[in-house]
């Protein structure tokens, strides 16, 4: 099946939602507002859980990563920082324009360029930012798993390992939600002992 260079009509709300998120992200970066970025990143999770599309996932990870990056002043003292933030902002502006004209391939290229710009950074800043992006992916995966998508499916969608997600999700309260308790312990233990003994 040939891939089309636009968000298909039924997914129109994805495009508009992403456009809204990215416009607000641009402003939050200018305002140096990590909390707003965190809120914006959370807003993409509902949509990412349903559609599991690479665009929503990439934006969720990107915006969350930026919230972490700009909340730590020491990144800004690194020599490559001005170049990184300038490339990031320029690609973000282009991504907004591409979303406006429904140019899906262009939008994807802009997101890929941001990721590439991290690889071209030198030394510590590259390692810091790469690490933040990985942690952001695991955090977003945990949120999608929390929404009811299985562990392996979530890991697959986010391109991380189930092992990373298990370690992270285990430290959250996901398993303590009342709806997760599906059978009483006695029944389950009895079942285990019956077959194992």
């Amino acid at each position: 099946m040939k891939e089309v260079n636009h968000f298909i009509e039924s997914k129109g709300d994805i495009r508009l939602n992403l456009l809204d998120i990215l416009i607000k992200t641009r402003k939050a970066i200018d305002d140096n507002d990590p909390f707003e970025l965190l809120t914006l990143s959370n807003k993409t999770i509902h949509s990412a859980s349903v559609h599991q599309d690479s665009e929503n996932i990439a934006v969720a990870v990107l915006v969350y990563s930026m919230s972490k990056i700009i909340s730590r002043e020491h990144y800004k003292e690194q020599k490559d920082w001005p170049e990184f933030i300038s490339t990031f902002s320029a690609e973000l502006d282009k991504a907004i324009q591409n979303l406006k004209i429904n140019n899906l391939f262009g939008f994807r290229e802009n997101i890929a360029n941001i990721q590439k710009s991290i690889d071209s950074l030198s030394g510590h800043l590259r390692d810091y930012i790469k690490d933040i992006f990985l942690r952001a992916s695991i955090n977003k995966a945990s949120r999608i798993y929390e929404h009811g998508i299985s562990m392996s499916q979530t890991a697959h969608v986010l391109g991380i390992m189930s092992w990373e997600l298990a370690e992270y999700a285990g430290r959250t309260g996901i398993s303590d939600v009342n709806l997760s308790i599906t059978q009483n312990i006695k029944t389950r233990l009895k079942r285990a002992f019956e077959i194992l003994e």
Partner: protein
Amino acid sequence: MLNNSISRKSEDFPDPENQKFSRKTKEQKFLIFDSSTIISLSLSDLLFILEEIKKNSPEIKLIVSKDIINEIVNKPLTIKRFKLEALMVKNLLEKNIIEPATNYVSEEELEKGTDDILNISDRLFRAKNENIQIMHRGEISCIALYKILKKKNEKVLLIVDERTTRMLCENPTNLHKLLQIKLHTDVNYDYEAGDFFKGINIIRSSELCSFAFKKKIIRLPGSKIESLDAVLYALKFHGCSISGEEIEEEKQIFSKI
């Protein structure tokens, strides 16, 4: 007497055509492992219990599908952070403690079963004009394996630590509610299709370890309850979806044994 000698003879000369799938004995039991269970056991340094369970009860077959082997061995072998864990699991596979499912069912049958069930699970929940893919091929392969072995009248248990598979099989209504609450939107659930997942017997690594604990396979210093508490919380912190409330209940049950 005659019957016995006939049966012995037939064992001495197995049909070479069916040799691969003729390992069934009367007591044979199957524990099907999802990746999530192997992960939490491995990260909690409790994989050794599988070896002990197998040593004590060779009739228990600990099996994994090809998709699960990919998740627990092949993929983590490429990542330094989990390479050691992957090698430890690989060691269990090489020692036949954990076996590939294809030792007992044909790959074609399992692949077809997995495809069919994936088709069902992908259509169970729908929101915003789109089917929600809630499950991954690996998890579905465990369910397919369970169904195939059940059809052959085998005793089977599915061991899953991750939450969604368990909710889907044991209380899909709760899963439906969870999706609606978390997604903040109407989610349609195909109840009829959901019936396919009913009646699947599931335990978690926590129940497996409780058994190991009772059989003194796990021995730790300190009181019985303190040790059990440590084991269950280790599993929980490594991804086993057991609640704090359930852990307390399990400890209470054990204090009376």
